[in-house]
């Protein structure tokens, strides 16, 4: 019975998101108007031990297609123990006489990403605050596209499409598909005023709104999600601009991915508990759809996946392979519920291919897609179980 319910639910979510996009994407495009003049922008880059990628990130920031006089780039070195600070200084020196925007560097004692962001925001004055991770590279046209969203007076923050920068390992290819899915979900959620996260790689905020809701929470490990939930709780709109791209370094190994995902899931659980009051119709679709869906994905789905893995593991040793009549056995083994699960999976593939056309400039490769569907159902409950274990044992989370 549970398998039927899961198949129905996945199919429903697929159909719902496609329906929302088809029905509403047109009306939202009309709401955006070109700004009479561009606002001033402060780009804040928190960095902790980012010597590997900081210069590449700064290259992309100085290449942003935005008037030099209206943009200030502020790097906040959050107690790095590697050569991050020197790398930034070298970059500043090398670009001193170029026409690229000025870069300011601050160094402070390590206090976490939120504290670094708040430190940088407090020392800038621009109308728009843009947060960029130190291992992320926005496309040159991304900033202008993000800023255009603010022509709509209800938009308090704008988010982009996040993509994996040059995936090489299988783990990175898997994430490349995942990021496409997440980007489309954010785009759809934006159409129903229900965006649930302002991604660290690149997000933009009105300074007046940050003044109103307060600085980034320095006690959470997922400040990007916490800020989004806080904005939603104050009925501020977060707009997704899928054509604004940012490329980020994705964890290349399973171990690194596990560390990242445990932090995300733990932070997500903590935030859901803290903002459980958002589960209410007064918050519109955010309250009746996104929050319950998050609870389902965070609590119920992992248990179901664990049960699925358990069944596979238990049945595998006793399963007999009749190789002399393989086609018939495969055919007889197909149950009605499996047809429905297959239908949901096919719908999921179609959904992902559609999503990649909306949020990406290239199609998802079939190999990466296959990897995603085969591996993700096993990885996700594993990450969840590790997160629950760490949360229950109160292990100190790490900022990757």
């Amino acid at each position, binding site marked *: 019975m549970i398998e039927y319910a899961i198949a129905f639910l996945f199919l429903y979510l697929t159909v719902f998101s496609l329906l929302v996009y088809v029905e509403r994407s047109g009306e939202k495009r009309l709401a955006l108007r070109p700004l009479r003049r561009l606002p001033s922008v402060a780009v804040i880059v928190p960095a902790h031990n980012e010597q590997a990628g900081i210069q590449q990130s700064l290259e992309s920031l100085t290449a942003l297609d935005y008037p030099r006089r209206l943009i200030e780039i502020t790097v906040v070195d959050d107690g790095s123990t590697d050569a991050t600070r020197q790398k930034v200084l070298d970059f500043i020196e090398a670009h001193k006489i170029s026409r690229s925007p000025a870069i300011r560097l601050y160094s402070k004692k390590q206090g976490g990403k939120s504290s670094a962001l708040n430190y940088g925001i407090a020392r800038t004055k621009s109308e728009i605050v843009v947060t960029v991770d130190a291992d992320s590279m926005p496309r040159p046209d991304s900033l202008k596209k993000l800023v255009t969203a603010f022509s709509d007076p209800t938009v308090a923050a704008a988010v982009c499409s996040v993509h994996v920068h040059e995936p090489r390992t299988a783990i990175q290819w898997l994430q490349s598909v995942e990021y496409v899915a997440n980007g489309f979900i954010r785009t759809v959620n934006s159409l129903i005023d229900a965006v649930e996260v302002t991604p660290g790689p690149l997000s933009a905020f009105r300074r007046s709104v940050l003044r109103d809701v307060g600085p980034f929470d320095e006690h959470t490990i997922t400040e990007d999600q916490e800020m989004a939930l806080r904005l939603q709780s104050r009925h501020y709109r977060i707009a997704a601009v899928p054509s604004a791209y940012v490329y980020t370094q994705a964890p290349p190994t399973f171990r690194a991915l596990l560390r990242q995902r445990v932090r995300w899931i733990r932070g997500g659980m903590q935030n859901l508990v803290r903002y459980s009051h958002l589960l209410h119709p007064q918050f519109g679709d955010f309250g009746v759809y996104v929050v319950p869906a998050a609870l389902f994905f965070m609590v119920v789905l992992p248990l179901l996946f664990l049960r699925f893995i358990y069944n596979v593991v238990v049945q595998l040793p006793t399963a007999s392979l009749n190789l*002399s009549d393989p086609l018939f056995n495969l055919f007889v083994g197909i149950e009605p519920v499996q047809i429905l699960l297959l239908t949901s999976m096919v719908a999921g593939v179609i959904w992902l291919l559609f999503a990649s056309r909306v949020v990406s400039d290239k199609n998802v490769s079939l190999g990466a897609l296959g990897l995603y569907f085969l591996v993700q159902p096993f990885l996700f409950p594993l990450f969840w179980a590790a997160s629950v274990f760490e949360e229950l044992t109160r292990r100190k989370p790490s900022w990757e």
Partner: protein
Amino acid sequence: MPSNKKPSALPVVEPVQRRVSVRTYVLAFLITSVIFVVGLYLGSQLQLFKSDVVESQLQSVQARTAAFEFLTAASAAQPLSPAACQLFAQETGKNNPDTRQLGKRLEALERSSGAQDAKVIELKNTYFYLEARDYYLLQLLKNACGAASSVRLYFYSNTNCPACSQAATQLEAEAAADPSLSIYSFDLDYATRNAAVRQLADQNNVKSAPAVIEK
């Protein structure tokens, strides 16, 4: 005093008007339900199709045995000619692997649809009559043509018989090593509803499963 503050490039922010997209939720539910119902229908058709495939194979094996029976009736009138005995040998050679495959397919169908499925019970009943008839014919014609062949009668149970799968595996191995070996399998659970299974179990004094009788 005029203000020196530069006017903002942006309009003043306004709170968003919240709404619940009830119509979209309902429409998505209806579309999903239609897809789901179609899927369920396809699934039920597949279930019917599965048993149809096995039934059709059963009928095809049955038809072959009918031709075989004709030869047997002819042998009762006068001794079989060498050509007829050769035909008998060919038919036996063809029948056994097909019957065995049919048995396995029935087994798979039973695992998929359940032992209490009405269609499965009907097909298994027919299959056991077919097997029993094939076995008796083989005995009869073995005497008429003097052909040497070895036979195993295997009685198993699908309820509470942990040793049955081991016995089946062993018999599989013997059959693979000796193509002339004929194995006839009967589910002892059917002894209360199938006369052929009852007769063979009583004839060979089979009380519990697994039981392998060499003939």
